[in-house]
């Protein structure tokens, strides 16, 4: 089916096709449309879902946790400060091994308040124990949401999944999109039959009691093992999804990387802009390539190292500022992943696009120009810098 949908509507439509048991609903820009569309489906009788209109994101995630623990499938959507308000609950969801699905429409965190896209919200939650899958465009936002439950609910994983897309750029822009038939989706997702849940009569459950030191660390280790196991499951589900959709997904996308000497590593909608720049440079004979990281948790470190092994210079571009004083989170993890290579390429970090600042093809070309210089001279210059910063005089 060919359609034209915004990213938000595409995710809401995926939710409708899944027909979850419970949705925690609370508005925040730019994810608000998802619960709005879904309210329409509930009102029209197109879904059979308890639609719980809570008073905060803290409560929407609490509702999801409790509902999922009771044996139901729960979903929610949020952005920015909403995700931040869920912070303590994200850890509870993951540690209780509850495969909730959350659509995160990426938006800058306050303050100062800003409603446009960057990844500071979901990057702040990167160590909460959730699987994180990022979309480049509306099609991927739809596809990723459909793959979330088969990944999260599988017994070897049992972890919550956050599917992310860039606020406004992806969530509000309308694009052509291919939708699957609902019966195909339902068959792909399957019924939810958890092994343990609160109401299991023959084996009632306590969720979240005090965990003493002799047990706590074992539980954390099991969580870490589950995150490792998720990597194989994500690829398995992608292969199954390809059979029904014809669309292929990996842990990351390699774009013109076969013989690439200069490479970018980035996440999300900027990949589209970067691909255009790569094409242009390739036409000029520059061996440029791009890696678009799709799965950030679990982090595909070994795979990235293999894919980047043959390059000479790399720019990792972070759409969030980690305030580590040493670069953004994607840079820190990518550079660490490449440490064991025999011949390490030069690497720099460019923080860009915060608070929705636009990135153009020319901006990406400049990054490649810099990489070309680095590859020849071996001089990286500042390893950690910010793209397109205006001078004090310009901003006055």
């Amino acid at each position, binding site marked *: 089916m060919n359609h034209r949908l915004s990213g938000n509507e595409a995710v809401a439509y995926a939710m409708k096709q899944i027909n979850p048991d419970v949705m925690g609903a609370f508005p925040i820009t730019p994810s608000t449309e998802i619960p709005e569309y879904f309210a329409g489906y509930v009102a029209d009788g197109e879904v059979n879902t308890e639609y719980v209109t809570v008073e905060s994101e803290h409560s929407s995630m609490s509702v999801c946790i409790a509902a999922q623990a*009771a044996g139901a499938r729960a979903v929610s959507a949020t952005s920015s400060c909403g995700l931040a308000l869920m912070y303590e*609950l994200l850890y509870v969801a993951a540690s209780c091994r509850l495969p909730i699905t959350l659509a995160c429409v990426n938006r800058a965190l306050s303050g100062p308040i800003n409603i446009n896209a960057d990844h500071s919200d979901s990057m702040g939650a990167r160590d909460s124990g959730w699987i994180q899958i990022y979309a480049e465009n509306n099609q991927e936002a739809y596809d990723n949401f459909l793959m979330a439950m088969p990944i999260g609910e599988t017994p070897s994983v049992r972890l919550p999944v956050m599917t992310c897309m860039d606020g406004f750029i992806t969530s509000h822009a309308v694009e052509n999109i291919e939708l699957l038939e609902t019966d195909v989706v339902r068959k792909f997702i399957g019924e939810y039959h958890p092994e343990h849940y609160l109401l299991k009569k023959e084996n009632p459950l306590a969720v979240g009691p005090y965990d003493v030191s002799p047990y706590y660390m074992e539980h954390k280790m099991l969580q870490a093992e589950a995150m490792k196991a998720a990597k194989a499951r994500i690829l398995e589900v992608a292969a199954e999804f390809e059979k029904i959709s014809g669309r292929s997904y990996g842990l990351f996308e390699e774009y013109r990387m076969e013989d690439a000497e200069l490479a970018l590593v980035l996440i999300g909608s900027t990949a589209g802009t970067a691909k255009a720049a790569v094409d242009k440079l390739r036409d000029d004979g520059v061996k440029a390539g791009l890696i678009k990281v799709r799965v950030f948790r679990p982090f595909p470190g070994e795979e990235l190292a293999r894919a980047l092994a043959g390059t000479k210079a790399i720019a990792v571009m972070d759409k969030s500022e980690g305030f580590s004083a040493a670069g953004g989170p994607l840079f820190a993890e990518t550079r660490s992943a490449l440490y064991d290579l025999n011949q390490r390429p030069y690497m720099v970090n460019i923080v860009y696009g915060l608070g929705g600042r636009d990135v153009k093809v020319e901006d990406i070309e400049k990054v490649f120009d810099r990489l070309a210089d680095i590859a020849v001279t071996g001089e990286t210059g500042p390893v950690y810098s910010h793209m397109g910063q205006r001078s004090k005089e310009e901003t006055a």
Partner: protein
Amino acid sequence: MTTSIKKLPDTEQVLSGNGACGGCPATMALRIVGKALGSNAIMLLTPSCSVASMGMTPKLAYNWPCINITFATAGSSASGITHALEIMKEKGRLQGELPTVFSWVGDGGTYDIGFQALSAAAERNDNMIFFCYNNEAYSNTGVQRSGATPRGSFTTTTPTGKRQPKKNMALLMLEHNIPYVATATVAYPGDLYDKVVKAKNIPGMKYIEILAPCYLGWQFDMPETVQMSRMAVRNGAWLLWEAENGKIDFNNPSSQIISGKKKAEPVNEYVMKQGRFNRLLKGSDAEQRIAEIQGDIDHQIAFMRERAKITI
């Protein structure tokens, strides 16, 4: 007629081997609540004395499926369960009689950090019983002031005594237009039992608040929990009442105090028996401080007497 303590069922949902203090009023109250609810129930907790005393993984003392999320979530997590049950029943994944969903939360988790989510659950009229066991302070963290701490009380964060009176939380819940609100305390177990049985059979949001005199926080002798609870009712510091569909009825002996048949006992003995008050009554302002405590109680009795007259 109030059910006699001798007639309460023998069944126990609070098992032996829990980690509560001796004389713990919350555990006493939970035993009575368990007798009224039976085993077909799901318990929602928040980090509090009851989570600390329920036992530690993998051994637990509460005989229900239970879930503890975080401090502010008592209202919303109970909503999650109750909605999940309804849809699972509708979709044929649950058979039999649905369990009673109840939250078991201290005054901090009710009056303060949990108030927002509780208010929203009440406004949605979600089907649950929300119990507040009110020991008038954050006892689990070592006794700090809460919105339920009365004026004049020492806590570790009010070392010279709390300056403000407590909130009237049960009345605030009544103003949410929910079908049932009640207050109770451990000295009147039959009254508590009957209220829980009644609440169990009413659909929608029910709120029951139980005054829970905590020997550690209030600083009295451990065996005097029930005595302290009874004194609080006799002097009007705690009023026993219930409201079905908004109409307030007082229960004995509070009804006699409200109607004027019986005079509320003066607060002096109650205050002098508790270290949280009497440690601050050694200076020249002692009389004035007691008068303030008495004044808050008198005001509350007078206010509730008038409030109960509104029946529209």
